């Protein structure tokens, strides 16, 4: 187990190095000269431009710029936003919880809908229940988020006036208001994932229910409900847990667009603004942080997989 963890971490390091080089490299390809943007009114003055470049070390060779950046990142310094004049790390720490809340709520919604629906349609295979569940799943997967988002705003905010159409209140400020501002975007985000989870749960349950150990459980006198929810589900969840973790990562990424629709000041807004403003340190920091989250999630996926799968635990 410890040896496995050590090996897993050793694998991560090259991944991170390649990632950071990629992020830095792609950054250089982005059009527009940041010095020009930062100079504002004084962009005509070559002295000012040179001064800005020197200040930001944009005049140094690229490898040096890279090492400089990565060296700072390693000690938690993601740089300083050129635009907002705040440390990037602070901006990330401010915005990440918002997106995290959104993605978590979406994930809970997805699990609460997707897993039971998958179980139900597997145990009622080829019945109307199964067909309806599959139809809804397909709908959830194929419906564009922006369309569903706008429809929900029209219905619940404009028409019924139950929920605020946009904006965000943090959990610590006002718990229920916070839920009210995030429930619609979370639902929009969650539906697609619910469909994916439902289909995988259904497939995994059908596989599990056909196994010999299910017959053994029935032969033991285990009630059918327990056969499904304990014996089969416990095994079916092993692949679903891994998938679920990856889907959670996709939710974090998917939040970017949904945050725009509902004007929620999360990670998505941070990165979109930074790109438009050529705020390189912020873009780099946000992309790197996203990459780190994905790497961490894949590690979590592996750990969860081990936790639910006894065959892995002893390895």
């Amino acid at each position, binding site marked *: 187990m410890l040896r496995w963890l050590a090996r897993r971490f050793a694998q991560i390091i090259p991944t991170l190095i390649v990632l950071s080089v990629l992020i830095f490299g792609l950054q250089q390809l982005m059009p527009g000269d940041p010095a020009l943007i930062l100079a504002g009114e004084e962009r005509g003055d070559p002295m000012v431009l040179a001064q800005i470049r020197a200040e930001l070390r944009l005049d140094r060779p690229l490898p040096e710029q890279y090492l400089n950046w990565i060296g700072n990142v390693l000690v938690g310094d993601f740089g300083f936003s050129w635009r907002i004049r705040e440390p990037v790390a602070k901006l990330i720490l401010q915005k990440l919880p918002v997106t995290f809340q959104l993605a978590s709520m979406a994930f809970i919604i997805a699990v609460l809908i997707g897993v039971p629906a998958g179980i139900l349609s597997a145990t009622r295979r080829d019945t109307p229940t199964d067909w309806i569940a599959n139809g809804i799943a397909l709908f959830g997967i194929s419906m564009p988020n922006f369309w569903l988002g706008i429809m929900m705003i029209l219905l619940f905010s404009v028409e019924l006036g139950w929920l605020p159409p946009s904006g965000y209140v943090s959990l610590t400020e006002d718990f229920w208001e916070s839920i009210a501002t995030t429930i619609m975007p979370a639902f929009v985000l969650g539906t697609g994932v619910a469909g994916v989870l439902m289909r995988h749960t259904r497939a995994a349950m059908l596989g599990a229910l056909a196994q010999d150990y299910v017959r053994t459980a029935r*032969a033991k006198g285990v009630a059918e409900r327990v056969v499904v929810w304990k014996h089969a589900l416990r095994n079916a969840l092993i692949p679903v847990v891994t998938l679920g973790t990856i889907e959670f990562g996709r939710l974090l990424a998917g939040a970017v667009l949904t945050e725009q629709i509902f004007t929620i000041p999360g990670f998505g807004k941070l990165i979109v603004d930074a790109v438009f403003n050529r705020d390189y340190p912020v873009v780099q920091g946000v992309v790197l942080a996203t990459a780190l989250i994905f790497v961490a999630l894949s590690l979590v996926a592996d750990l969860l997989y081990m936790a639910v799968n006894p065959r892995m635990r*002893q390895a």
Partner: protein
Amino acid sequence: MVLAIDDLTVEFATDRGTLRAVDGVSLAVASGKTLAVVGESGSGKSVTALATMGLLPGSARIGGRIVLDGEPLTPERQRALRGGAMAMIFQEPMTSLNPAFTAGEQVAEALRIHRNLPPRAAFDAAIAMLERVRIPDAARRARQYPHQFSGGMRQRVMIAIALACAPRLLLADEPTTALDVTVQAQILALLDTLKRETGTAVVLITHDLGVVADHADDVAVMYAGRVVERAPAARLFAQPEHPYTVGLLGAVPKLAGGAGRLASIAGTVPDMRNPPAGCRFAPRCPFAISRCIAEQPPLIPITADHATACWRAPLSQILEAA
């Protein structure tokens, strides 16, 4: 009699028509006795056992009567008695245990259901049960998962699950087919011992006539969904009366203890969706006469405890004359 099956029929609706997997089977086993059911693959042995347990899929149409301890088995009674008064072990020890639960939990579950034991007591009783099936270091092994057990040890766990609640009837469907010869002998010896201790009636489904000779009191030979011959084991080996049994025994090595598999008799098992009109063995039978093709032979006693379904019975006289 612990188990009495009377005129059991089982039909499955398939894409290509109705398949009658079991066609008028009658069997009986007494307490503490072992009835071996032998026959080629596809002859309806497993379906007969699963019908007894009530474990066939809902699509199966079941006819006839199954009586356990004098009372007919209804679906409700089957549900209540499964794992308690009647238990079953299967051919595939590698896949028959749930990989997500420890061996002890899986034995304990049967005790919780049928004995109403609280979890702690059930687990302790499970350890005792694992000891009874001779699993060394049972207390530690009870906390291990199936993948940490060998095939033979897993089958011991299966036996522990099946016998945990001291069933009146044990259905063992090829319990050793997947195991190697030494392990096979150990498992069968264990089943014999446990049966003697508890008086459980055992139905032992097997391919292996060597197993029948060593472990069965009575034998029922099945062919194409029917019982074609029934006799005490010793008598069946000494004086087989059905041409199919004669064919099967043809391949058993003469030396006792040989691991004789069923003989390969020329031809194949008939398609059960469309079986021959007369004797189902007629297309493969060297003794067939015209009547065999037209009429199905019933299972008729030759002596008090020996019955055969053949128009040319008693075959032993023909064989002697030849």
